[in-house]
């Protein structure tokens, strides 16, 4: 893929959520993050499109995404009081799904805020 420049990209490393970053990317790797701070640069340049990790793991063994989703649903459904925790390094759209799932499960939902 050709080198592409993305203007006014958003950095989600810290709570400042700077939205004026200029990213130089080839679709597989970000080569340059203009205007980003030290933390933001490290955040953008350390992620690549390579498949570094297995798609999913169940009991420490590599597994397919479908099998992992099914196993996760079983474990959550069997539990008496499941806990949904975290939601910091993710999007609001995913957070919305998490709260809906906690509602369905009759579980607890909590974020980093309570630490």
């Amino acid at each position: 893929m050709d080198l592409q420049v993305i203007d006014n990209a958003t950095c989600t490393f810290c709570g400042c959520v700077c939205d004026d970053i200029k990213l130089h990317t080839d679709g597989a790797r970000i080569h340059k993050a203009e205007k980003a701070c030290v933390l933001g640069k490290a955040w953008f340049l350390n992620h690549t499109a390579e498949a570094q990790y297995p798609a999913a793991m169940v009991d420490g063994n590599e597994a397919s995404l479908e099998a992992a989703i099914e196993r996760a649903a079983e474990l959550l459904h069997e539990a008496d009081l499941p806990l949904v925790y975290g939601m910091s390094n993710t999007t609001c759209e995913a957070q919305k799904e998490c709260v809906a799932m906690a509602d369905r499960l009759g579980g607890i939902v909590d974020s980093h805020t309570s630490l």
Partner: protein
Amino acid sequence: MGGKVTCTLGEVKNRADLIIYWGGNPAECHPRHFTKYTLMQKSKFLPKGRKDRTMVLVDIRETKSVKASDIFLQVRPGKDFELITILRAMIKDQHISDAEIASTGLKREALEDLVKRMKSAKFGAMFFGMGLSMTRGKHMNSAALMTLASEMNAYTKFVAMPMRGHGNVTGADVIMRWQTGYPFGITYNRGYPRYNPGEFSTIDVLVRGDTDCVFVIGADPGATMPKPAIDHLAKVPTIVLDPHVTHTSKLAKVHITTAPAGIAASGTAYRMDEIPMPLKPAINSPYPTDEEVVRRIHEAVAAKPEWLIEQPQMLHSQV
């Protein structure tokens, strides 16, 4: 906004002539906070930028942020609540004994000077970090500082805002408030949301061993939580969604690799002043997004029998 006396960072950038950072180290943890919002920007109301602003730093030790500040107040560790309470009293010209001031590790003159500056400022903005909200007193410290900000409005415009870490943690508060009416520490175990931090907050739930399955997304409690909490996390089945194999993934029954938000996954993230920002992904990840995986797990759970036989009734139908 949960009753907070606050504003957006845009207002701070354009109007705030007194900036107080309390228990935080923005120079190292939020490096662009000074230059984008609080100190360096020039505006219609502050044409000379940095020269028109005063920055006060309150912390227990000298961090790199001291260099950026005009006034540094080194408070004795664990005495933040006392110091805030003293300031609240001094603002109302109430008597404070020398011993009470000495217990905070500061001098009367320094506090009198600060009170004078706060009252004569046109627009004061206080930013508090984990040095205030996560030390002795915890949320009571934050509540005291927000009360100080609200009481200062009898004299001049004043606001207080937390310095949020980790990307979209503000979004989590906003989404939970929107969906449940509460910001965090919520249980649905009676079929409707109830809120009680200390009872339903993660560390307490884990340390007491109340939960029997943990779903972790966008966090690594295995690296950050106290040991008794991690011990329980390792005992119960844990499911992790993360772009990397984390410490928590190693303790987990199920790990699913997802696309990193904002880099390979699109969506929305909230800035610390609760302004939503669209994300612009720059790379194509081979992994699915968090949103898609959570939705599919939710659908798989929904296909199973309902756990609550009788659904909670609406109040009007109970009469």
